[in-house]
């Protein structure tokens, strides 16, 4: 991005934000991507090890200062788990349904007026929603679950400053809700090495083929310039260490028994990568994200709370 361009856009977005319209008031578009290391909560990142995923999540949120740090009473929340595949929870190709349920409950307890859950699935969406267990868990917890596989629900957006992904179609739920919570599962990925929080955002856009065709890793990083989730909660309990991202059996899984929480999407991916056993800088889109100043790849600079349960 040219400096002049940057200044012009900064003024533009400053002005728009300043108007404080209800639609844009809660967003930090584009500019957020250029302000590194802004994190909410008591710590930059909380990491918990244990055997009870829901208890681990509750512990992590307690350490971070509670969901009320992110969700204010009356706000609407969109929760984006990974529901990409038509497989059962034991296969850990999708986010653990109980974790999704717990996230929804915390949001409602914090006073959220509405929590919406969706994903643009890879396998058939009805089967994925159902067999992942996430539809039921989210509903039981009080969320509504909406379709993500219909083009009519997607809106055109542009991404200022992007290198390859200059425009995209984003799901309306991302545009309409006040708070965006990303709940990915840590997995091996055939082409991006890992799929965690940044890669999970491919499930909120319409045309994924464009990303694959136009430098996948760069597109993943570019998209964070548009909208970073307010909070990332990574399920690293059962980790698929090979044959990802779909997996072929439970033999592809390793019990890493971990959960990570952070507002910094790059930091949480970096920490997850290390739990996986991969050097963060070796993951293409993480290296690019660090260069583009989207978040912090260097964990030594962060204030991390580690909990062993």
């Amino acid at each position, binding site marked *: 991005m040219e400096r002049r361009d940057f200044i012009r856009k900064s003024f533009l977005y400053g002005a728009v934000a300043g108007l404080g319209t209800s639609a844009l008031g809660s967003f930090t578009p584009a500019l957020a991507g250029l302000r590194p290391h802004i994190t909410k909560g008591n710590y930059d990142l909380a990491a918990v090890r244990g055997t009870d995923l829901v208890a681990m999540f509750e512990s992590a949120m307690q350490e971070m200062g509670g969901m009320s740090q992110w969700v204010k009473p009356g706000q609407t929340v969109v929760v984006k788990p990974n529901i990409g595949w038509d497989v059962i929870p034991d296969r850990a190709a999708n986010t653990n349904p109980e974790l999704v349920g717990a996230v929804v409950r915390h949001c409602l307890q914090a006073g959220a007026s509405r929590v919406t859950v969706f994903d643009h699935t890879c396998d058939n969406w009805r089967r994925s929603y159902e067999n992942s267990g996430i539809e039921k868990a989210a509903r039981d917890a009080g969320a509504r679950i909406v379709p993500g596989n219909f083009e009519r629900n997607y809106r055109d957006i542009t991404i200022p400053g992007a290198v390859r992904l200059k425009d995209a179609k984003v799901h309306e739920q991302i545009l309409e809700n006040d708070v965006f919570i990303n709940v990915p599962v840590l997995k091996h990925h055939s082409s991006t090495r890992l799929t965690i929080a940044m890669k999970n955002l491919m499930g909120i856009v319409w045309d994924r083929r464009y990303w694959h065709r136009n430098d996948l890793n760069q597109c993943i990083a570019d998209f964070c310039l548009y909208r970073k989730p307010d909070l990332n909660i990574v399920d690293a309990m059962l980790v698929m260490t090979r044959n990802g991202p779909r997996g072929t059996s439970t033999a592809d899984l390793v019990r890493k028994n971990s959960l990570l929480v952070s507002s910094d999407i790059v930091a949480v991916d970096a920490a997850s990568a*290390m739990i996986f056993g991969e050097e963060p800088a070796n993951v293409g889109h993480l290296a690019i994200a660090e260069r583009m100043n989207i978040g912090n790849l260097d964990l030594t600079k962060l204030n991390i709370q580690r909990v062993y349960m």
Partner: protein
Amino acid sequence: MLLRHLRKIRIILSLLIFAFLLLFFMNVHGRIVDPVAEFLLRLQFFPSLLRFTAIAFAASSLGFLLILLITLLFGRVYCSSICPLGTLQDFFIALGKRLKPKKKRRFVYTSNRKFIIRYSLLAATLLFWVFGSLFLLNLLDPYSNFGKISVTLIQPVFTKGVNVLSGLLERLDLFFITPFLKQSLPLDVIAVSVGILGVIMTMSIWRGRLFCNSLCPVGSILGLVSTRSVYRLAFKDEACTFCGKCEKVCKAECLDSKNKTVDMSRCISCFNCFASCSNNGLYYENAYSGKKQLVKVDIEDKTRNEKRAFFLTLAGGVMSLPLLKKFAKAQVEPGKAGMVPTGTSLPVTPPGSISHDHFTGKCIACYLCVGACPTNVIVPSFFDYGLEGFMQPKLDYHKSFCNFDCTRCTEVCPTGAITKLDRSTKHITQIGIAKFLYESCVVTVDRTDCGACSEHCPTKAVKMVPYNGLWLPEMEPDLCIGCGACEYACPTEPYKAIFVESNSVHQEAIPLGEDHGPRDHEKDEFPF
């Protein structure tokens, strides 16, 4: 008297059967709809007969025998009540009554001399079948046509309606109606369905159940049986006053009220005549009870001609069919290699369909699988199988792929063209093999990572291997089941860099390894 109520019973029964089948074809499922509709599918004549030839002696494939038995007892109850296309024609007949001027609303008995065509067509249809082509059967069979009309014309309107409604509700933040993911069907297929519907509609508005007594192969077969049925319609000489009311309501045009005869080969047992007669001048007669009141007119004269026509067609057909076979085969063989960068001239057939020959030899092209497929990967073909497999379904990986765990098409197919597979058998049923085109891949051409193919592959037959700091797809064909997930996901245009080549005989893929469960992780400390 009971006979007068038969018409009402027939109407209620036919409407119920029609409704259940239509709901099933619209993909509306439930605890009542599913078992009832599945039972009704077993009763459809040619699907059941085809199933019999595919699966042989199973309770599920003996429906056609039951129909023959019912016909032998009571006449063509099948045509008036069980056949969904018959009921559809009744709708058109009712519509026609409203459209026509009063005088033309009545039916008139027609002699059956012209109906040589009927048995010639039946003979030709059966001959085509014997020589391996269901071309004529799939054009003429009533159940097949009901299915085609339902799936290609009614279902799109239905799903569109549901989707528009759910879209409007979404604007109000209501999400309780689940929209359907449906792809639009090819125009040529829709055009054929519209043509079939047009012919049937015109015929029924013009002359009642003319289709059933001229073109329909089931009508012709059951017509032959019903001339020998135990209970037959007959005039009661002492009660009939020659008023002719029965003739006017006879939509099969088989009642001759002047001569007091009934052409049982055309009577579809609709019972309109019973209901119309105020003097009880018609009754059901046991033709084998000794007192032969039944009038045997026509039958002698007619059958001789029919038989002649039947055998003439048979002979002509035997001579000409090898030619048709040859023509069809020429279409199927993958010729002109290199002209098309990807793709295969052989279509992929659904899992469970055993082989191209099995599938094209058994599929009646009712499109039940097309409508039921949750991923819409099964679509009607046109000439992809050649003339002999005209319009039979195929798998199209351009807009979708076959879901790994799904066995829906194998569950619904009524003819045995797609045999039932359990999930674990489906997992190793290789319907085709993916071919990777190195020179066309994003990774080799653009030098950026992609891997969409491997990402979607459920068996990891497409795996990624190191390649100049990137990751390149590599095929392990023995693991591939040909589901098309890779082809669908591949982002290259206009041709895919990976595509499935059909197995003309389905093979067995190597099963995925034993599921040992997750491995344990030793380290307790965080690595950061």
